[in-house]
C-alpha cells in the first residue's frame, strides 16, 4: 500500500513539471505585463518602462525561466509581484478560505446528494424518485454563476437576509462565516449535488440487484439493516471516487464563485493573478494547487483501496 502511494507520488513529479512548463510559457505569451497594473490608469510610457526594468521583465525569456527554475530547485516559489507577499504565504492565506468553502459545499453535496440518491433508488419509479431526479437534473443544468446571481438578487438585494458578498473567517466569527458562506457554498454545491444524487442512485440500484442483497433480504434481515449495512456500504466504493472528483471540481468551481461573491480564496487569487500578469504568483500558485489536487487524487485512491480489498490485492 505505502509502496503504491510512493510510486504514485513519484509519478506525479513529471506531471507537475509539465504543468509548471505550460504555466511559465503561457504566462509569458499573454500580451501585456504587470507594469500596466502597477502603473495604474494613466501611467506614462516612461514610467512603464521603468517599472518593467525594476521587475526584471526586460530580461530574455530563457534567463527568466532559468532563474525561476533555479529558485524552484531551492524550494523557493518566489514572490508575488503585486501583493508584496511570497507565493507560499499568499497561498497559505487564501487556501484555508477556499478549503472552508469547499468543505461546506462538500457537506451540502454529501448530505443532499447521497440522501436523495439513496431515497430515489429505494423508491425507484415513484414520484419521489422522479422528483429527486428532476432536481438532480436541474442541479447539473443551472450554471453556478447564474444561481449565484439569482440568490444575490433574492436573498441579498430584495430580502436583505444575507450579505451580498465578502467573507468572514470561521475563526473570527462563526455566525458571520455562515452568513457569508452559505450562498457561495450552495451555488458551488448545486452541480455536485446533482452529480452525486444521480451516481448514488444508479450505484444503489445496481447493488440492490445483487444476489447477496437478495440473500440478506431472504434471510429476513430488516430492510433498514440491509440498505444501510450491505447496500450502502458497497455503494460507497464507487461513490468515494466520485467524491474525490467532486473535491477537484469544487476547487475549480471556486474560481467563478469567489469572483462573484468577492471571497478572498485561491480561485480569486489565481484569476486576479492571471489578469494582472502576476507571473510568480500564477506560476507558484498553480503549481501548489495542482500538487494539492494530485495529492487528493492519490488520497482518494488510497481510500478506495482501503474500502475495497480487491483493489489492494490487484495492485501490482
Amino acid at each position, binding site marked *: 500500500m505505502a509502496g503504491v502511494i510512493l510510486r504514485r507520488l513519484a509519478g506525479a513529479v513529471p*506531471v507537475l513539471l509539465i504543468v509548471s512548463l505550460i504555466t511559465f510559457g*503561457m504566462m509569458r505569451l499573454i500580451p501585456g505585463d504587470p507594469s500596466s497594473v502597477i502603473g495604474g490608469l494613466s501611467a506614462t510610457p516612461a514610467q512603464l518602462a521603468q517599472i518593467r526594468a525594476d521587475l526584471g521583465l526586460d530580461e530574455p525569456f530563457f534567463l527568466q525561466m532559468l532563474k525561476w527554475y533555479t529558485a524552484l530547485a531551492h524550494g523557493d516559489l518566489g514572490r508575488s509581484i503585486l501583493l508584496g507577499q511570497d507565493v507560499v504565504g499568499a497561498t497559505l492565506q487564501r487556501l484555508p478560505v477556499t478549503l472552508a468553502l469547499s468543505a461546506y459545499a462538500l457537506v451540502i453535496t454529501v448530505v443532499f446528494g447521497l440522501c436523495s440518491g439513496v431515497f430515489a433508488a429505494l423508491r425507484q419509479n415513484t414520484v419521489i424518485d422522479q422528483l429527486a431526479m428532476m432536481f438532480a437534473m436541474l442541479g447539473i443544468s443551472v450554471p453556478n454563476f447564474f444561481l449565484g*446571481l439569482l440568490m444575490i438578487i433574492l436573498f441579498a438585494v430584495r430580502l436583505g437576509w444575507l450579505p451580498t458578498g465578502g467573507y468572514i473567517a470561521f475563526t473570527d466569527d462563526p455566525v458571520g462565516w455562515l452568513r457569508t458562506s452559505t450562498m457561495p457554498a450552495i451555488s458551488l454545491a448545486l452541480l455536485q449535488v446533482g452529480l452525486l444524487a444521480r451516481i448514488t442512485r444508479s450505484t444503489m440500484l445496481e447493488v440492490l440487484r445483487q444476489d447477496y442483497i437478495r440473500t440478506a433480504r431472504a434471510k429476513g434481515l430488516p430492510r433498514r439493516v440491509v440498505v444501510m449495512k450491505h447496500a450502502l456500504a458497497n455503494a460507497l466504493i464507487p461513490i468515494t471516487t466520485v467524491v474525490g472528483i467532486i473535491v477537484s471540481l469544487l476547487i475549480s468551481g471556486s474560481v467563478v464563485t469567489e469572483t462573484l461573491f468577492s471571497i478572498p480564496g485561491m480561485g480569486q487569487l489565481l484569476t486576479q493573478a492571471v489578469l494582472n500578469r502576476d507571473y510568480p504568483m500564477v506560476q507558484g500558485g498553480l503549481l501548489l494547487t495542482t500538487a494539492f489536487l494530485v495529492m487528493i487524487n492519490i488520497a482518494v485512491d488510497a481510500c478506495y483501496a482501503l474500502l475495497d480489498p480487491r483493489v489492494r490485492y490487484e495492485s501490482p
Partner: protein
Amino acid sequence: MNLPDAPSRPDAEADIQDVPIHRQHPAWMTLRRLFRHQLFLTGIGLFGIILAAAILAPIIAPVDPTKLAMRYKFRPPDGTFIFGTDNFGRSLWSRVIWGAQLSVVIGFSVVLLNAIFGTLIGALAGYFRSLDNGLMRVNDALMAFPAILLAIGVTAVLGPSTFNVILALAVVYIPRTARIVRSSVIVLREMEYVQAAVAAGAGHWRILRRHILPNAMAPLIVQLSFLFAYAVLSEATLSFLGLGAVPPTPTWGNIMAEGRQYMSEASWIITIPGIALMITVMGLNLLGDGLRDVLDPRLRIQQ
C-alpha cells in the same frame, strides 16, 4: 462470415434478446429505442427549441443584436420588446436569439474538435504502448489544471475571440475525451477478434479503423453529448468573466456580464439569457442520459 464483420458492438447479443421476432439492423434498433425513451425526447425537445432559434435567427430576430438605440434603454419585457432592452437599448430578443446561435456553434465546434483530436490521441495512446507514456503525461498535466483556469490562461494568451474560445475549450476537454477513448481502446485491443485480426496480418491502421474505433464509439458519443453541454456552459462562464467572445458579440455570458450591474433594477437582462442557458444545458444533459441508457449496454440490460 469473415473476421472484419464481427459484431460491431459488444452488446449486439442484447439486441437479439430484446427483439426476438424479426432481427433488424442494429442502428435502426438503437434509433427506435431512443425515440421510445422519454427523457431523450424531452432533451431533444428542449435542445430543439434552442437549435431552431439558432438556425432561424436571421428570420425570427431581424433586428441587429448590436444595434444601439439609446432612447429605448432599460425597457422591461412587453409587447414591443418581447425580452425587453438593455442599457444600450439593444433588443434582448435579438441578442438572446443570436446568442443561441453562437452557443450552438461554439458547442458544436468544441465537440467536433474533441471527436477528431480526442479520438486520435486516445486511440494512439491506447493502441501504441510506446506512445502511451508520453501522451498521457501531457494529458495528465493538462487535466491537473483547474479547468476554468486553464481556459482563462489559454484565452488570455490567444486574445479574446469566438474562435479562440473554441480553441481554449478544446484544449481543456480534449485530454478528457482522449482518456475515455484510450481506456476503451486498451480493453478492445486485447479482445480476441482484434488479436485474430492481428494474427491475420492486418495493418495497425486497418485494425484501429475497422475493429477498434467502431466499438469505442458508444461511450464516446455519450461523452460528446455531455461535452456539448459543458462547452456551452464553460463558454458562458468565460464570457461572464470577460474572457469569452469579444463584446459586443451577443453571447449569453456577455449579456449577463453586462447586465450584472443592473441586476436589482433590470433583472431581466440576466434572467432571460440565464434561463436560455439552462434550457440548453438541460436539453443536452437529458439527451446524453437517453443516449447513455440506450448505448451503454451495462446500464441498459439492468432496466
